[in-house]
């Protein structure tokens, strides 16, 4: 899909569309910035339109501190990613589709963080699932991309079903769907007998979306997507949706031992597992994917906490992570774009030829490692404070945070040192710096990482405080400061850095050990997923081959048999009575038509020559048309006659191109008898059903309505036509749509036949 790598520093012309469409996220970002000061003052913007009031579903949106923080991250990353993609994706086909998916995804993500209704949130949640499927599988001509996209869809989509179940349980228990009202009845939710069920269902949705163990493996596999997508989906947005939901539901559901204990254990476990695995792979993108797992684990851990401190740690680290991770993903994409590889073993010395990217990566990795003066340092301090103050399992929380942070430090060193330091590889000497569109994002986010580290008080007052206050009742002041004095968190920070350095030093033996252990594992969750999927597909294949074997005869026989069995079983006892009461007489013209239709039908059925069959069909059609004419329906009589004529023309046109009917091999005698039996039973049932219908009184009120309204309301004297074009015109619109679609499909079928 990708053409030759562009080695020049210019923006290719084909990417103006990407540049132009980056105005959308930029505009949204500016809009959010305009609303920012009021939000900081504590104002909450809301809009509310009814959608399905009976389902408590409304197009309700709200912008508060938490939504603003997420919204700013989403739109800012969205802007940089679009800008970046406008250059990076040059040479891909279907770029228009790409940008539509990307922006659609961004809008769905904004929908999640701005909706004020759980059901509405779920709709946006599912939209991100579907769009991420399309984005991960964007290289759909590669089987691997398709496979991984499907994995992501199955896991996050399956989790989405659990989320829906949780939401519906809440609704069935009588709780309101609006977040504000739900939060107000938080005590009732927590005390409800079904609280564990609400919690587990919603938690499964969160865990699948946010890559928590054991549903984590789709996330590293989703790295098959082009890099801008990875950066957007996995650094800043999609995987944070689960975290957002936890934070948003915090006032309504948090505070129970179940909530805190489960989240701390799952989050801590995910953080450790992700961090340990991050030292394994050689592919830079995969390394970053595992560090994302670590970050998501830590965020879940802190979302489990009850205190302002814990939530502050979550929101602060959320920002830290979004900034450095998006920058790193984009920078790795730049390296890949310029050198054609992301393999740590083949990269080296890029500092000389990509100095600006190197600078941005330096900023991002130092923030990731948590060096003083960087925003990551602030984040780490508050994390240790939060972990030490965790209500449940504080020791586990602290150790998990410490170990994963130390591993992060080591991984940050690997990401910074291996590709950029050392001698330049021979093949890499031609590499040059990427154009500005690809540098801007990492640079700005790197700079923000430093800036926020220097002015933490401003950040806490303008971003963290509004976000935390939106979900926590206590209004205790949050102050992020650079230096707290010598205390336990500071000591832990120093310990992290030294441990990280140690791990970095021993990274080769550690990696070997890790790979050996992973190799020996006899049970893995991805393995379980794969086995389950394979078994399911085999089963589905067997089942399909039985019920859909392609035999027209069997399909039809089954349909007819089911009809006979279902209707006939109820019907059979009434048959004699109906047959007795029906007077089989009529005017001579009716009897004539009856005979004519019967004889024509017999001709069609028995004809061995197609001309005879066509003649018989025409006879049936004409007979039916005459019935219409005699019994007061000139409109349909006319239509029927014309349709008969045209059908005959088309049938002749087609049959001229087909082999004659008489050449076909007649079916065996037993089969013919069976068919005749089936067909005549079905005919008998239909005929008696109609006879029975005719004996029931007819409700003509609808017809009477049309008759009275035809002239008065619709200015037409032909009642049938008035029904068609006025009273029931929506049906007619649907009908002509079907006609046009059939013609369109037919024309394409004929043209394809011509091309061969």
């Amino acid at each position, binding site marked *: 899909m990708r053409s030759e790598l562009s080695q020049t520093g210019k923006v290719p012309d084909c990417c103006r569309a990407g540049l132009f469409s980056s105005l959308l996220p930029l505009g949204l970002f500016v809009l959010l910035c305009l609303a920012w000061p009021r939000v900081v003052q504590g104002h909450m913007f809301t809009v509310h339109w009814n959608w399905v009031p009976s389902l408590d579903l409304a197009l309700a949106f709200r912008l508060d501190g938490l939504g603003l923080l997420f919204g700013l991250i989403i739109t800012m990353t969205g802007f940089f990613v679009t800008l970046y993609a406008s250059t990076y994706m040059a040479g891909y086909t279907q770029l228009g589709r790409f940008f539509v998916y990307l922006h659609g995804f961004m809008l769905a993500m904004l929908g999640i963080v701005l909706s004020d209704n759980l059901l509405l949130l779920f709709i946006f949640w599912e939209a991100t699932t579907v769009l991420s499927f399309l984005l991960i599988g964007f290289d759909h001509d590669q*089987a*691997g991309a398709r496979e*991984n996209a499907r994995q992501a869809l199955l896991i996050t989509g399956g989790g989405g079903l659990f989320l829906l179940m949780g939401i519906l349980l809440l609704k069935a228990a009588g709780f309101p769907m609006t977040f504000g009202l739900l939060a107000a009845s938080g005590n009732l939710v927590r005390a409800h007998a079904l609280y564990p069920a609400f919690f587990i269902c919603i938690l499964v949705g969160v865990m699948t979306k946010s890559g928590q163990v054991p549903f984590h493996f789709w996330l590293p*596999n989703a790295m098959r997507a082009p890099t801008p997508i990875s950066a957007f989906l996995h650094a800043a947005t999609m995987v944070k949706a689960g975290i957002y939901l936890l934070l948003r539901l915090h006032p309504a559901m948090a505070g129970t031992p179940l909530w805190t204990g489960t989240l701390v254990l799952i989050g801590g476990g995910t953080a450790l597992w992700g961090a340990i695995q991050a030292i394994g792979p050689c592919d830079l993108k995969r390394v970053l994917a595992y560090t994302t797992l670590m970050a998501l684990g830590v965020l879940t851990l802190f979302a489990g906490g009850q205190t302002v401190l814990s939530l502050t740690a979550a929101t602060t680290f959320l920002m830290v992570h979004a900034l450095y991770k998006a920058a790193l993903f984009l920078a790795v994409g730049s390296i890949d774009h310029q050198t054609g590889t992301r393999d740590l073993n083949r990269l080296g010395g890029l500092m000389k030829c990509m100095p600006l990217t190197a600078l941005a990566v330096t900023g991002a990795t130092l923030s990731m490692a948590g060096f003083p003066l960087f925003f990551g340092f602030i984040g780490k301090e508050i994390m240790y404070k939060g972990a030490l103050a965790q209500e449940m399992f504080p020791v586990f929380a602290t150790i998990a945070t410490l170990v994963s942070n130390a591993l992060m430090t080591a991984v940050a060193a690997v990401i910074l040192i291996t590709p950029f330091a050392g001698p330049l590889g021979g093949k890499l000497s031609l590499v040059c710096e990427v154009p500005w569109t690809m540098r801007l994002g990492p640079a700005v986010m790197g700079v923000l990482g430093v800036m926020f580290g220097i002015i933490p008080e401003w950040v806490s007052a303008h971003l963290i405080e509004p976000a935390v206050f939106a979900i926590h009742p206590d209004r205790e002041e949050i102050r992020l400061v650079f230096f707290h004095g010598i205390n336990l968190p500071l000591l832990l920070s120093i310990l992290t850095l030294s441990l990280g350095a140690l791990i970095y030093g021993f990274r080769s033996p550690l990696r070997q050990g890790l790979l050996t252990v992973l190799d020996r594992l006899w049970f*893995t969750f*991805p393995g379980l997923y*794969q086995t389950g999927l394979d078994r399911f597909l*085999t089963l*589905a*294949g067997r*089942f399909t081959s039985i019920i859909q*074997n*392609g*035999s*027209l005869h069997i399909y*039809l026989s089954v349909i*007819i048999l089911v009809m006979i069995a279902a209707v006939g079983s109820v019907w059979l006892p009434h048959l004699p009575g109906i047959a007795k009461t029906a007077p*089989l007489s*009529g005017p001579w013209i009716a009897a004539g038509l*009856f005979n004519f239709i019967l004889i024509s039908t*017999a001709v*069609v*059925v028995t004809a061995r020559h197609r001309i005879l069959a066509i003649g018989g069909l025409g006879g*049936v059609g004409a007979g*039916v048309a005459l019935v219409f004419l*005699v*019994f*007061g*329906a000139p409109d*349909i009589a006319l239509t*029927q006659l014309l*349709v008969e004529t045209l*059908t005959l023309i*088309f*049938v002749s046109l087609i049959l001229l*191109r*087909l*082999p004659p009917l008489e050449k*076909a091999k007649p*079916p065996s005698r037993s089969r013919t008898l069976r*068919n005749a039996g089936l*067909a005549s039973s*079905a*005919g*008998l049932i239909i005929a008696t059903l109609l006879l029975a219908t*005719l004996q029931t009184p007819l409700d003509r009120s609808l*017809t009477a309505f*049309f*008759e009275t309204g035809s*002239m008065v309301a619709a200015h037409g004297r*032909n*009642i*049938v036509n008035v029904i*068609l074009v006025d009273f029931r015109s929506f049906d*007619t619109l649907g*009908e002509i749509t079907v006609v046009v679609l*059939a013609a369109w499909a*037919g024309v394409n*079928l*004929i043209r394809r036949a011509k091309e061969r």
Partner: protein
Amino acid sequence: MEPLLAISVGVMIAGALYLMLSGMLVRFVFGFVLMGNAVNLLIFTAGRLSDTAPPLIAPGRTLPAEPVANALPQALVLTAIVIGFAMTLFLLVLLYRTYDRTRTLDADQPVFVNEQAGTDDPAGPDPDGPDPKDPA
């Protein structure tokens, strides 16, 4: 009169199904057309045929002067005729295309009947797919 038509409908349905079951695709299409006619007649008959004046209003009046035929099933049948016509055309083209591709119009030929549907994997094993052993 209606009972006579009910019997006609039954006979037409039986004939149509017999044709569709025959396994010859051309006769299937004939059956389809016949079935369309039968169903149209069924809907029409179910709306009763006691009044035979067309559902029209004389000029200068706002209501039909005498009892007129039931307009509602007529509107339904009119729509059904045209849709059935479009479907017949599509079916004919499909028939033509089928013959063009398979050179047969016998629905029991092995080209149409797949005994192993669903079990074959057209993509085959994928070297780039997620490794089931990868303990990610």
